[in-house]
């Protein structure tokens, strides 16, 4: 299993190198090596590098929090978007864009706002869902909270100026167009949370047996649930603030990892990190290459891949041959 992970990591490196080379202007190693090609180096260091790094980091974050949420809700079809976290983050990001201060620390303020939104949405979902006492109740509550959040985004987009509207749309669909070194810097705040998640692997394995069962096996379930949800909200909040809602990555990546390797979280969590980074990088590269120089939002690409995959999962689940 370790060797698979190392191969995946190497593959990710290759992906990164290829993605750095692709774009409107041709970059070759030769041109970068030559002393006087400042433009090429500029494009590489100021445009492509932050964008590629950001997409890898965000992909890793979103996919890992997806794996976390799936284990926690012990539902392989759960996803931060499905439990309302991303919707809440998008709503608060939009609120900040439309009603917030025009200047200042836009990056940090926006990230904080999105984080608060994702926390509030999660808290609301737990509050509503717990009354039903069932996991499905929580998913249904998440769908409702998500729908309300997105209609909130819709209302805000009516109030917005043209410039703001562009930003709001960007957040609703997800895009790395605005990637720069500052956003890479902010995304690094996900790293401690990601690291912490890796330490929850064993307990998440046991959580998949059920809340009651996990309690019988010595897990303090409410404490673990709170911590895991805070971590997922933090990561999702940061990711959404930087590049908007990237649909389906959190859902499908853990599945892919489970399919090719193993269900144990000690493998699914780091595996999702690497594969998530790879997939989002791939999707972003497609989104900027496909109709170049026009760029389609990366969320559209991931949804185009993820939607059919999700349907496939549901159909497979129905036929009794479950994943």
């Amino acid at each position, binding site marked *: 299993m370790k060797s698979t992970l190392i191969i995946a990591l190497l593959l990710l490196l290759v992906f990164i190198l290829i993605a750095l080379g692709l774009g409107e202007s041709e970059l070759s190693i030769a041109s970068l090596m030559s002393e006087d090609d400042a433009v090429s180096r500029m494009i590489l260091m100021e445009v492509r590098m932050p964008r590629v790094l950001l997409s890898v980091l965000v992909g890793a974050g979103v996919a890992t929090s997806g794996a976390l949420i799936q*284990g926690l809700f*012990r*539902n*392989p079809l759960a996803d931060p978007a499905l439990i309302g976290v991303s919707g809440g983050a998008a709503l608060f990001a939009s609120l900040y864009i439309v009603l917030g201060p025009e200047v200042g620390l836009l990056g940090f303020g926006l990230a904080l706002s999105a984080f608060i939104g994702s926390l509030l949405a999660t808290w609301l979902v737990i509050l509503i869902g717990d009354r039903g006492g069932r996991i499905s109740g929580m998913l249904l509550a998440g769908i409702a909270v998500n729908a309300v959040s997105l209609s909130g985004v819709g209302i805000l987009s009516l109030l917005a100026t043209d410039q703001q509207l562009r930003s709001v749309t960007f957040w609703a669909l997800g895009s790395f167009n605005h990637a720069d070194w500052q956003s890479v810097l902010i995304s690094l705040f996900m790293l401690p949370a990601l690291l912490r998640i890796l330490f929850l692997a*064993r307990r998440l*394995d*046991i959580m*998949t*047996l*059920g809340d*009651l*069962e996990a*309690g*019988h*096996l*010595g*897990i*303090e379930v409410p404490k673990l649930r709170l911590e895991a949800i805070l971590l997922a909200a933090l990561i999702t909040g940061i990711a959404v603030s930087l590049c908007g809602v990237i649909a389906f990555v959190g859902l499908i990546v853990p599945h892919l990892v*489970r399919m090719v390797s193993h*269900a*144990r979280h000690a493998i699914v969590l780091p595996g999702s990190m690497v594969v998530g980074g790879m997939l989002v990088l791939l999707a972003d590269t497609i989104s900027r290459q496909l109709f170049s120089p026009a760029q389609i939002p990366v969320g559209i690409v991931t949804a185009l891949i993820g939607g059919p995959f999700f349907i496939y999962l549901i159909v497979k689940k129905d036929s009794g041959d*479950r*994943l």
Partner: protein
Amino acid sequence: MNLQLSQVSYRIGEKCLLRDVSFQIGPGKLLVVLGPNGAGKSTLLHLAAGDYQPAEGEIRQFGHDPFNLPRSERATRIGVLPQSSRLDFPFKVREVVHFGRSPFVTSQKENKRVVAEVLLAMALDRIAERDYLTLSGGEKQRVQIARVLAQIWSVSQGTCLFLDEPLTSLDLAHQLMLMRLLKTLATGGHCICVVLHDLNLAMRYGDLIALLNGSGELAEFGEPPAVLTPQVIKAIFGVKTTLQPSQFNDRPGLLFE
């Protein structure tokens, strides 16, 4: 005493699920909980296991109030099998059973040994590497039982095992296999509480029987031959019964009208 319940009542809203239940069991006893559907058997089991706080009365596990003990400490001496457990992730059978070892800091080698023994005891050794999701209902049930057994396997004294209808979806041979195994474990010093519906198995394997009536009261408590009389069965289940001496066992079998 491993387990003591004194005047325990439990209600949800206005509805009283259990009324004034008191009994105690020591080590080495196999207690069978019987009663009609909705009598509160599962509620009783979960109360005794420390999952719910009783509305009135006291529960003591080894002299302690379970709610005063951290989960991790309880998990080393209390194993619980709920009526139904869902697992939707493709773990291997061996891994699921291995989860039962998680409360312990025993060595990997020791854990592997226990898991191997439990797999063998539950006749799961041949499917140990199978994906849990591909198993039949009865096989899944056996895996879940094995997981709970792995939790108390290497400890011989001072444990309680609570199993809520473990025989559902097991075939005859596996039902008997499990009852024999539980009997052996009880003889070895474990205290075992199991909810059953089969009065014959209760008669044959139980050391003690707690019989609940339809309104959540403990109607009878005692040794099987004393509790499972035709009069009592008629009164609780409304079924006429005759006792038939068995050639396999010193306790009689039950024949129903």
